[in-house]
Each structure stands twice: as C-alpha cells, then as structure tokens.
C-alpha cells in the first residue's frame, strides 16, 4: 500500500489531495501544525503543500522519501508586488528544487486556476507518478496574471 504524507490538510488543496489518496486506498498521514515531520521519512510520496515550512521540509526530507511533490507558484514567472514575501519564498523554493534536480521531485507551479479546479492538480500528480521525466508543471493564470 502506497504510504502518502501530506502537509496542510485542514483546508484547500491539501484537504482535497488527502481525500483523493484516501479514496485510492493509500495509507495517508496528515501533517499539520505541531506535527512531528520526522515521521514523514519513509513515505513513498510526500506532498509538500503547507506554505511557510516548505523549504525546511524539502531540505529535511528530500533524501528520505520516495517521491516529493512541491507546491510552488506561478508568481515566480509573474512576480506579485502585493505579496513580496510570498514571491520571495516561492522563488527560493523553486530555485532549490531546480538546484537539487532530482528525479523524485516534481515542482507544481500553481495558480488560482489550480486552486479553483483541484482535479487538474490531482491529474497532474497522477500523470507525473507515471511520467517522472517531467520535473515542472505550470498552470495557466486566471484574472490577474499572477493569480
């Protein structure tokens, strides 16, 4: 049985992905505020979703999980002056993923399109699980360019 860990499952995409993998019959562990992330070591798939701790989780766990999906953002292509900290964090995260250049990591560059249609995110992850030579998938913006 596939062991899946997901950070930030109380709402949004994390919650949707949690339900998706549970419905698939995977053994899913939710990691939320206060969780001991060392328990994620050994997961077959870790969804590095919760904003704010993504870089730490990437550096701490990339070598000890089977695969990792990192939730990035299209703000790295369309910088958002209204969210400078968010833009900087997502840019550093993307740079680190590309620097590592590991075949077990997928960078998803999300937009509001993806947040509004979580099925496309599920499809992208499932596609990557059988096509690991893809290392970045970016979603189209809707409304403002960087959203």
């Amino acid at each position, binding site marked *: 049985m596939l062991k899946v860990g997901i950070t930030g499952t109380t709402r949004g995409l994390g919650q949707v992905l949690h339900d998706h993998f549970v419905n698939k019959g995977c053994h899913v562990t939710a990691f939320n505020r206060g969780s001991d992330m060392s328990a994620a070591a050994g997961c077959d798939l870790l969804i590095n979703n919760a904003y704010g701790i993504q870089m730490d989780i990437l550096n701490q766990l990339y070598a000890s999980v089977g695969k990792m999906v990192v939730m990035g953002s299209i703000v790295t292509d369309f910088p958002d002056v209204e969210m400078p900290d968010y833009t900087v964090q997502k840019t550093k995260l993307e740079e680190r993923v590309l620097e590592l*250049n590991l*075949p077990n990591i997928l960078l998803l*560059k999300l937009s509001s*399109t993806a947040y509004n249609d979580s099925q496309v995110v599920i499809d992208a992850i499932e596609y990557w699980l059988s096509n690991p*030579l893809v290392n*970045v998938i970016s*979603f189209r913006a809707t409304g403002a360019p960087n959203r």
Partner: protein
Amino acid sequence: MKVVITGHTHGIGKALYEHFQTFGGWEVVGLSRSNGYDIDQDFDKVIEAASGCFLFINNAYRDQQQTKLVHALKNRVTKMIVMGSVSRLYPELIHTDYVHDKQELAEACRLISIDPNGIDVLHLDLSFIEGMLDSEDPTHFVSDYNLKFEEIVSAVNFWLTNPKIRQMEFRWKLTPFVFDQLKRAFPTLDPSRVTF
C-alpha cells in the same frame, strides 16, 4: 477535428503525426519542406494551411520562425502546442542563437497565457531526446535523462484533457562525459551552472 503539425517527416513531429493518424476523429495535416511547407520560405502558405485548425503543433525549428508562427496563429487556431527547449533556461551555459530563439518562444507563450482571451497554449520545455543525437551539431548531447518520443506523445495527450496547464518542463542532467563535450564546444562554460 483538424490537427496541423510542422516538421512531420522526422523526429517528434513524425511521432505525433503517426500518433494522431491512429486516432479516430482527427484530420491530420503534416507540413514540412518535403511537401512544400518550409516554415521560413513558405511562411504565408503555412499560415493559410494552419488557420482554422483545432490544434496546431508548432514543432519545426528554424531560427525565429516558431515565434513568428505563434504570433501569426494565436488568434487563428483553437489550441497550440509549442516545442521549446530546456536549454533556454541555461543561457549562461550555452550561448547560441538556438537558445536565444527558444527564450523568445517561451516568452511569447507566457504572454498568451496571461491574456484572458488567449487561446490554450502548451509550451513544452523538451530535454535531450533519444534517437535524435546529431554528432555534427554541438548543441545536441545525450544526458542522464533522455526523452522517448512516446513520453512526448503522452504529455500531449495529457494536456489535451487538461488545457489549464500552460507549461511542462522535462528534466535534464548532464553526465561528466557530456560536460567534457560541452566544454570543447563552449570554452567559456561556467561549471558552477552545470548539474551532474
């Protein structure tokens, strides 16, 4: 539905041309130099042949012609798939007109993706492709991750059902052997920019 593919007689274009021919419901049109559709010399003919199609696969490379095709067809086709290159991400590493052309191509696709009225465009950043190594061309090398044609076909199929995706980048990684080849071709190569 009509799909038009440039450069359909070899490589990726041929693989996609044959793929769509096996599918029911597609009218497949291939445009290549061999049938009188050079994307440079016969540019207007190519535009005329592709206008109105459901899917235009902007595959054949010739200087800046791919980017010109994006601009000329962005309001004349329903969907477009554009064959770019991961080399565009490493302009400091490889200084060629090819890399510059692929950068401009990516930017043209990026701008369409933020146009609320823009068509669905998928920009594929392709890496090294198995079976397409040209030993005479210094920009062509093998890597640790060589794409197979079927993986590109798979990406195209995936996108046709998920057009909210605008870009997919394939992994590349150089071997020390390839790095040595690159160093000979490009003496100013910065080793710190290369991932092994």
